[in-house]
């Protein structure tokens, strides 16, 4: 199949997925028990007239089908609805939180890939030795830990017991810094614990995938040929084995994105990190359905998009897929 046809097919598939998600997203939020507007009643002392206005504003008086149509129309004009809690457009609220989460996820992912790949290579190279076995068990144990629990343990050790890192947040609000470097150091200090915790959680899987992928590549014919030709070990590893073994890692990053988002929710909750995850947590506790709905859609589309990109990247990188 040629590249363009492949691209088109993948794109259409992604588009269909997005539509199914939009559909699910809408109806999921209409089958919930109870009337969302009632969340507003007990709290604010709202008059009957005002209540009616709010109902109109949220389109709650229309039929389901009309509501779906309104929803779709608004969606395509970038309107994800208005937050019950903040009384502001959901998209604005979500966008405000994106940088913090991207920073956290990005740093942690890069860190975990570098360390994970490196360790994976070492373990694969030393297959069967004690280092390999210890490393492998350690990766499996990390992989088995609830993310939030690791985060709590890290806070307990480093922020409560030793007090070398701040407990959470992205910085001290209103703090004064004598120079840019002091500010940067302070920022890094706040970032350190959540990022390291996040990376720890993610490393395990990269180690495992890199190790098994490298082992598989080394068994392939061309590797045997290379060895027969007398290519040195180190050369073989870096020039021949590594690039091919990296392929599954690329796919894993994309597949993992859903898992990473889940991790971010937990890490951000424990560390008070003001990103999308914490927004989701507070929307859950406030039962702020429009925010929850918008956030869910936003995250899902981001993940679908990333998967699509990874597909393309994979095709670009893999010599066997290239026609």
């Amino acid at each position: 199949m040629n590249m363009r046809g492949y691209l088109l097919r993948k794109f259409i598939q992604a588009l269909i997925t997005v539509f199914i998600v939009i559909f699910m997203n809408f109806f999921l939020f209409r089958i919930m028990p109870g009337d969302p507007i009632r969340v507003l009643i007990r709290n604010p002392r709202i008059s009957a007239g005002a209540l009616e206005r709010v109902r109109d504003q949220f389109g709650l008086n229309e039929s389901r089908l009309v509501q779906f149509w309104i929803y779709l129309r608004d969606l395509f004009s970038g309107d994800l609805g208005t937050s019950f809690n903040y009384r502001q457009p959901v998209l604005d609220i979500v966008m405000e939180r994106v940088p913090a989460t991207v920073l956290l996820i990005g740093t942690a992912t890069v860190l975990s890939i570098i360390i994970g790949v490196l360790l994976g290579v070492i373990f694969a190279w030393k297959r069967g030795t004690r280092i390999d076995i210890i490393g492998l068990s350690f990766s499996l144990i990390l992989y088995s830990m609830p993310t939030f629990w690791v985060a709590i343990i890290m806070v307990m050790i480093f922020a409560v017991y030793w007090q070398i890192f701040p407990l959470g947040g992205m910085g001290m609000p209103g703090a004064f810094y004598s120079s840019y470097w002091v500010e940067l150091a302070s920022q890094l200090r706040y970032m350190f614990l959540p990022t390291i915790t996040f990376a720890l959680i993610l490393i395990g899987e990269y180690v495992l995938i890199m190790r098994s992928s490298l082992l598989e590549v080394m068994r392939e014919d061309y590797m045997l040929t290379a060895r027969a030709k007398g290519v040195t070990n180190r050369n073989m590893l870096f020039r021949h084995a590594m690039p091919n073994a990296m392929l599954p890692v690329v796919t894993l990053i994309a597949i993992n994105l859903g898992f990473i988002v889940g991790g971010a929710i937990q890490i951000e909750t424990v560390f008070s990190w003001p990103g999308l995850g914490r927004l989701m947590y507070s929307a859950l506790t406030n039962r702020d359905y429009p925010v929850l709905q918008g956030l869910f859609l936003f995250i899902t589309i981001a993940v679908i998009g990333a998967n699509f990109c990874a597909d393309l990247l994979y095709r670009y990188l893999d010599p066997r897929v290239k026609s």
Partner: protein
Amino acid sequence: MNSALAKRDNFALLKKNMTSFWSIYRQNSMGLIGLVILLVFALMALFGPYLVEITVMAVDGVTQVIHPPTSGYWLGTDDLGKDILAGVIIGSRVSLLVGLAATAISMIIGTVIGIVSGFYGRAVDAVLMRITDVFLVIPWLPLMLVMAALLGPSLGNIIFVIGITSWAGTARIIRSQTLSVKERPYVERARAIGSGDTHIMFYHILPNVFPLIFANTVLVAAVAILSETTLSFLGMGDPTQVTWGMMLHFAFSMGAVSYGAWWWLLPPGICVVLVVLSFTFIGYALDEVLNPKLRRRDQ
């Protein structure tokens, strides 16, 4: 007559497979460790709740809340003065139950969709696989949280939510195995003698994909138990039930961290890690025992 015979044959095959499988499996030390840990927890969940009772620690009539470990209360007490060790033991039952029930739902959905999709192919396959893709790509935790929040906190809802969101991987694997199984001669033969679709799927295909179902169950169970813990921790659990996740939820929200109450935070967490680890070990061992290439090809 014919079908009864076929049935016996296939299940005899399955039994034979299992026996030879065990002789390979028991040579895998990781798998054995996992199995032993799991057995210990299974026994704990089965008999524990009959052996211990959650008592409140009191000295001279004063309830001892968040008390460090002491004789009689080996893991100390929580914010209500309740015995944490007893809580951990009794919590094992519901924690495992939720995990296993959710796994069962997930496996049933995954298997049915996988077999039906692989068996019928064409439009059925296309539609089912599109839906499967959607479930594969949607980030799990947000989906589970949203559903749990909408349905309300109860044990049944947690099981349902985990089950309904985690079947996609299984469906994919079962489908690809079905595709290869349905080309085999005995399936052709069964079709030739006029066996119905349901019959073929149940008596000929299911026994042949069974080892894969088995291997996958273990991995899904690990995920299900982690999910229960995480959902409960984030406040979506049923507060009237004692589970490890709820214990951690209360510990965190009631201030165990600033209290330095490690005896409250560590034990439930360690139990979760051990159970998940045992499933992961078993899964890893199964992966080596069963042909790993078979599964990797279609992922």
